C-alpha cells in the first residue's frame, strides 16, 4: 500500500485535484479503510453543497440553449444506459481476471495489512480505542452514529467476532465477522442515526475451554 494521501482526500472530494492525482487517490482509498472513511465523509459533505435544484437549473439551461429535450429523463437514461452496459460487460471480464490474482495473493499472504490502525487520523468523526485483552481494536463512528468502522489487529486468526453497542439503556448488536488469516478485523456497518454510549467487541476463543477476549469502550 502506498503512503496515505491524507492531504488530498478533501481536495479530491472538492474536485480540486488533477485527473491523474484523483485516480491515484481514489485507487488508494479503495484498499485503505482509513482513507476510505475520511473520503466518504468528505463526499457526503460535498454532496450537501450540491444544489438539489441542479436538475431544474440544467433543464432550464438546456431549453435556453435550444438543445432538444427529446424524451423524458427516464427514457434518456435508459437510452444512455445501453452504451454503458456494453462497456461494463467488457469491464467485468477484466475484473474476473483481476479477482483471480487477488485470491492468489490472499492465499499466499502476499498482500500486506489491510487496516493501518496506527495511521488513524483525527477528524470530525469519532474514534474510540477499545480496551481489553487478546488484541487491539478501534471503532470509528460518524458523529450521528449512522456508520461504524471497526478495525483491529493482533487477534487469533479465523475467529468470529461480534461488535455490540449501548444506546442509553438499550443494547444491540452492530455486526459480526471473522478475523482474517493474519488476525485482523475490518468491519463496516450503517444504521439509523443514534447517540452511542459504549461499544463492546467479543472475539470467540479457539476452543470451548478458552473464552476468547472482550474489549470495550469506555
Amino acid at each position, binding site marked *: 500500500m502506498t503512503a496515505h494521501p491524507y492531504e488530498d482526500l478533501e481536495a479530491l472530494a472538492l474536485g480540486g485535484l488533477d485527473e491523474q492525482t484523483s485516480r491515484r487517490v481514489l485507487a488508494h*482509498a479503495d484498499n485503505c479503510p482509513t482513507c476510505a472513511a475520511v473520503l466518504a465523509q468528505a463526499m457526503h459533505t*460535498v454532496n450537501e453543497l450540491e444544489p438539489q435544484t441542479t436538475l431544474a437549473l440544467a*433543464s432550464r439551461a438546456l431549453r435556453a440553449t435550444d438543445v432538444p429535450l427529446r424524451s423524458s429523463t427516464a427514457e434518456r437514461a435508459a437510452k444512455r444506459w445501453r452504451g454503458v452496459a456494453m462497456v*461494463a460487460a467488457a469491464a467485468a471480464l477484466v475484473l474476473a481476471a483481476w479477482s483471480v490474482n487477488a485470491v492468489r495473493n490472499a492465499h499466499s499472504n502476499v498482500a500486506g495489512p489491510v487496516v493501518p490502525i496506527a495511521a488513524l487520523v483525527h477528524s470530525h468523526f469519532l474514534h474510540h480505542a477499545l480496551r481489553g485483552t487478546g488484541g487491539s481494536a478501534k471503532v470509528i463512528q460518524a458523529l450521528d452514529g449512522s456508520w461504524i468502522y471497526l478495525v483491529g489487529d493482533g487477534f487469533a486468526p479465523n475467529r468470529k467476532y461480534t461488535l455490540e453497542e449501548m444506546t442509553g439503556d438499550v443494547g444491540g448488536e452492530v455486526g459480526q465477522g471473522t478475523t482474517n488469516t493474519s488476525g485482523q478485523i475490518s468491519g463496516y456497518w450503517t444504521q439509523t442515526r443514534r447517540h452511542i454510549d459504549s461499544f463492546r467487541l467479543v472475539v470467540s476463543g479457539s476452543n470451548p475451554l478458552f473464552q476468547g477476549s472482550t474489549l470495550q469502550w469506555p
Partner: protein
Amino acid sequence: MASDDAALVQRLVAGDAAALEAAYRMHAPRCNAVAYRILQDFAAAQDAVQEAFLSLWRHREGLVVRSAGVGPWLIVVTRNAALASLRSSRARVAREDRTTALDATVPSDPTHAVEQRDDAATVRRAIGQLPQDVRTVIELAYFRYLTMAQIAQTTETPLSTVKDRAQSGLRRLAQLLVHERTS
C-alpha cells in the same frame, strides 16, 4: 446511507450488472445535471456521467463506494470527470466562448447556489461560520472549479496551506452541519 442505496452497494459488490443499471436509472439524471452545470454541453456532460458509471463498476469492490454510498460517490466522481473535461485544452477554449452562459449559472456570491435547497439556510449558515481564508478555498474549489494548485497561485499561498484549508474546511463544515441540524 439510504437503505435503497445500501442494497444497491451490496448488489454491486456482488458483481450484479443489473445493479449498475439500477444505479444508472436512479442517479443518472442528477449526475447529468451536475455535469451539465459545469460543462454547459449536453453531450460532454453525458460523457462525464458515463465515465463516472464505468468508474463505479471498476471501483465497486472498494470501501469508498460502500461507505460513501452510491449517490454521493457518483456525484463527486461525475463532478471530477466533468472538471477534468473542462480543464482540458479543448474544453478550455469552449469555456471561454461560453463565459457569459457560465457566469449566468454561477452566481457572484457562491453561497447563492445552495439557496434553493430546502435546507439552504443551514448550509449557508455553516459556510458563513468558516474562517475567511478557509471559506475562500472552499468557494474557489467548489464553486469556481479551481484546482488546489490554481488556488495556491491565485491567492499566493503555499499549496500545502491551501490543502490544509480544504481539509479543515470540509471537516469543520461537516461538524457545523451536524450542529445546525441537531440544535
